[in-house]
């Protein structure tokens, strides 16, 4: 058929033109949003990711030293020029009040650097040279310790892996090798696995609780269904904080549950139900349950009763019919619901922060912790990278298999 058009090449062009106008219109409509998203979402996220390795404020704070220390072999102590450079740099940095920042960043790599720098900074006018090397080492013998210079050299590069490594419980040792941090400092691997573990548990709990009620709703008469749906949606639409707060009231020591149990004489000591892992499970499952039920319900609603009936008429017991015929057909709903619950659980912060103890906090908590309490943005960003990688890889693994259309809610 294409040969019929061979003599009519302009036709194709005309056609493309008409199509192009449509496309341009479409893109024109999308672009304002896309632009806003680009500027206020994608670029910030990209910058945040970059921040996890960005170290450029360090060479900027100690420019001469950063320059000259490149020539240092790493063996023995640096030469006099380097010592001179650092004294000069420190003088300026101290005036500009940048030394604190430098100290903190170096302290992250080697404890003791902060006090070394602040001490040196405070007394910088007492250090007279040349030779600066001697003067500095005399001032504090740490200046004569190669470990400090290794860290300095590493710390004055433009980029650093320090924080990403730290997010995986790794660090550089004295020989610039990557090693595990000591046991008592190791924390993030266990936090990450805890995050995954809690998320999986919540997903399973949501499935266990969500499946029966979704099934019940999907198979009950409209009046019951509507009533149950109203309950579910009311819970769904209620603010996350309200729900978390409610659970604190219900589970605390003199909360509703404990009062009831004590009153009825089942226990005589209040049970510890909140500010621990149990509370996290109870509250998070409550918060995330609708995300499991709604997609499951909509998938179940779309499964006609005929399938199970067919299976029964073919001789299957009700349990066989359920397992072999009904259950497989709910898989898209299970997939969509599980993915949503899992992804959300991975990034949860508020609920565990309020109803969990310190041992129940997940990665998000530490991101917030490093921002709000430590203001170590590089560390926060590195944990952000980890979290993003977790979410992204999960989505890539399962997102394709799960129809996003099944994820619509309400």
């Amino acid at each position, binding site marked *: 058929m294409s040969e019929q058009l061979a003599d009519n090449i302009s036709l194709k062009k005309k056609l493309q033109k008409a199509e192009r106008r449509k496309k341009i219109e479409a893109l024109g409509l999308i672009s304002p*949003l896309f632009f806003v998203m680009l500027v206020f979402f994608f670029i910030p996220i990209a910058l945040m990711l970059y921040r996890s390795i960005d170290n450029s404020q360090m060479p900027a704070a100690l420019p001469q030293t950063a320059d000259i220390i490149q020539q240092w072999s790493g063996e023995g102590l640096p030469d006099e020029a380097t010592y001179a450079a650092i004294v000069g740099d420190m003088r300026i940095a101290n005036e500009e009040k940048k030394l604190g920042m430098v100290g903190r960043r170096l302290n992250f790599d080697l404890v003791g650097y902060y006090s070394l720098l602040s001490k040196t900074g405070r007394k910088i006018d007492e250090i007279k040279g040349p030779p600066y090397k001697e003067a500095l080492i005399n001032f504090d013998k740490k200046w004569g310790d190669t470990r400090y210079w290794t860290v300095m050299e590493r710390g004055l590069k433009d980029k650093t892996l320090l924080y990403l490594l730290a997010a995986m419980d790794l660090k550089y040792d004295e020989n610039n090798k990557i090693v595990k941090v000591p046991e008592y400092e190791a924390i993030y691997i266990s936090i990450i696995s805890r995050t995954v573990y809690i998320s999986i548990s919540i997903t399973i709990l949501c499935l266990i609780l969500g499946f029966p009620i979704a099934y019940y709703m999907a198979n009950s008469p409209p009046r019951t269904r509507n009533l149950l749906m109203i309950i579910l949606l*009311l819970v769904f639409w209620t603010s996350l904080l309200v729900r978390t707060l409610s659970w604190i009231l219900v589970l605390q020591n003199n909360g509703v549950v404990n009062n009831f149990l004590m009153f009825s004489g089942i226990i005589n000591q209040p049970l510890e139900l909140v500010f621990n892992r149990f509370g996290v499970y109870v509250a998070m499952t409550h918060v995330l349950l609708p995300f499991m039920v709604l997609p499951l319900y909509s998938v179940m609603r779309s499964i006609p009763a005929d399938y199970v009936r067919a299976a029964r008429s073919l001789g299957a017991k009700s349990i066989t019919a359920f397992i072999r015929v009904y259950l497989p057909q709910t898989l898209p709903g299970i997939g969509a619901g599980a993915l949503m619950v899992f992804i959300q659980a991975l990034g949860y912060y508020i609920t565990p922060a309020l109803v969990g103890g310190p041992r129940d906090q997940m990665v998000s908590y530490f991101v917030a912790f490093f921002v709000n309490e430590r203001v170590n943005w590089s560390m926060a960003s590195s944990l952000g990278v980890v979290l993003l990688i977790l979410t992204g890889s999960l989505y890539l693994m399962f997102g394709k298999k799960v129809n996003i259309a099944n994820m619509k809610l309400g």
Partner: protein
Amino acid sequence: MALPAHATSGEKVFYYGYRVIVAIIFFYLIFPLLTIIPLSFNSGELLSYPMQGFSFRWYEDFFGSGRWGLAIKNSLIIGLSSMVLATILGTAAAVGINRADFPGKQIIVALLISPMMIPLVITALSLYLFFGKFGLNNTYAGLILAHTILGMPFVLITVSATLQSFDYNLMRAGASLGASPLRVFFKIVFPNIAPGIFSGALFAFATSLDEVVVVMFIAGPSHRTIPRQMFSGIRENLSPTLLAAATVLIVFAGMLMLTLELLRKRNEKYNSPPGGGGAAK
């Protein structure tokens, strides 16, 4: 799901057992919300039963005190503005996405709804670092923009869904009856997708009203919202005013749900006839 005559005793046990289990799960869902409401009318300061008396004092505190008042005002300003922005941007984009096929459309859609998928902490952190450079932290503008981005995917999804079920023949019908394209849009397209836009807007508003992580990162003391105020309240001093706030939010959720239900009903009225003989296909 009535129990048939031929049910075995095992089936009977399961039948009733299952009912009980479902009732328990629903109880689990609704129970915490029910406990919180009466306590907000408690006259005492303790956050536990039994109630000491009935009073509105915590509501007075919620609506009257400076901090909560400010929080209410902030929530409304931020919620409404970001709702309007998200609705306008999201609707335009949804229309665009439905308008034509172009390469990479799938990816663009996935990108546009990604704020829903990415953990809030990451968004919050990124915006906090980014806004810091431009002085947008601790401003209404920054919060509104952030919440616009968080609310927009809901608008995009609901409007897209409405557009997908929108019959393009209606536009053609309008033109064939002599209406100019502009007229067709305002008289025919808009009224038909309005419920979708409206429920998307409600979603966006609710998202903003419930959001606390981003607010925690980027809002200063004078821009605290209701949930942010609640968050510090829960952490710092569990005052019954929190319960009043919570009750107000529950009532708000109820109203939201009713509105959406009405929208859905209205749609149903138009779309499916009462007495069979349904539309084509």
